[in-house]
């Protein structure tokens, strides 16, 4: 099967439409299982009580926020190397979801910090790096918005995403340095209690749920982006007339 056939927006559009609901369904199933494990089945932690259960959503959102950035940077690299429109659209589709997960990681981290460490925000290395990651996402989205011409927007934001991707480990390293310098041997705000197997299972299930959710959303969003950007192509008009509802 010639996979490169799907590199054209016109043929990817229907494929994405068929795939998205399956990923969405999988996400819902994994989320249900993960929430059951995390909120009901897993034992209460000795030191943190039931507050530790936040870890099940916090870790999933934090992992996804970083993973999505990498995937976004990957598609940006592809779009630059092969001058591929669809790859750039894929990156464009991923960014808002990545930013959302970063914001959720910050919110859940703050809600976890208050009962366990007494403060909503404690400038620890991981949370501070998450905050900077949020700025990187927002910068990418803002640059895209600011440039009218779509191909220039694609390429410029791709360069920005790649520069950002290279800098993320440097930024994380420097923030960790800063944190240990100023707080001594600080206990990380997000240090997890020693993991029982059940807890790992729960975290894995939630991470998978978040992953499948992201794929479903990205596939759906890229469809809207394809329609918007390819609106002058003949097939788009046909697809719009043929569409029943918005699926």
């Amino acid at each position, binding site marked *: 099967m010639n996979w490169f056939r799907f590199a054209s927006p016109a043929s990817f559009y229907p494929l994405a439409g068929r795939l998205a609901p399956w990923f*969405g369904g999988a996400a819902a199933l994994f989320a249900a299982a993960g*929430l059951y494990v995390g*909120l*009901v089945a897993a034992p*209460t932690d000795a030191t943190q*009580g*039931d*507050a530790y*259960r*936040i870890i099940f*959503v*916090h870790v999933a*959102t934090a992992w996804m926020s970083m993973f999505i950035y990498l995937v976004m940077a990957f598609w940006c690299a592809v779009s630059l190397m092969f001058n591929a429109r669809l790859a750039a659209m894929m990156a464009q589709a991923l960014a*808002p*979801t990545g930013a*959302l997960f970063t*914001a*959720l990681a910050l*919110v*859940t981290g703050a*809600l*976890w910090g*208050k*009962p366990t460490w007494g403060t909503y925000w404690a400038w620890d290395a991981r949370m501070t790096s998450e905050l900077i990651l949020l700025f990187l996402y927002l910068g990418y989205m803002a640059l895209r918005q600011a440039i009218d011409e779509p191909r220039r927007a694609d390429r410029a934001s791709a360069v920005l995403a790649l520069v950002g991707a290279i800098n993320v480990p440097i930024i994380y390293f420097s923030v960790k340095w800063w944190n240990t310098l100023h707080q001594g041997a600080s206990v990380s705000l997000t240090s997890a209690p020693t993991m029982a197997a059940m807890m790992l299972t729960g975290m894995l299930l939630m991470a998978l749920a978040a992953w499948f*959710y992201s794929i479903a*959303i990205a596939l*759906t*969003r890229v*469809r*809207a982006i394809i*329609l*918007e950007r390819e*609106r002058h192509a003949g097939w*788009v*008009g046909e697809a*719009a*007339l043929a*569409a*029943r*509802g*918005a699926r």
Partner: protein
Amino acid sequence: MSVAEFVSMGGYGFYVWGSVGACAVAMCVEPWLLRRQHRRVLRSLRLRRDPAAARGGHVAVEGTR
């Protein structure tokens, strides 16, 4: 675990349900906004493509949703 214990989460109910709730809300709002955007784009495309058919078919489409 009883229902009461489940809701209160050892006294940390606000934090645990706040976190889970924030994620749940976000993951409902995002798809909903996306659907709206997609529908808006489709509507505007239909209008451009064939104003007469779009207006006539618009009612039928709404009904089949």
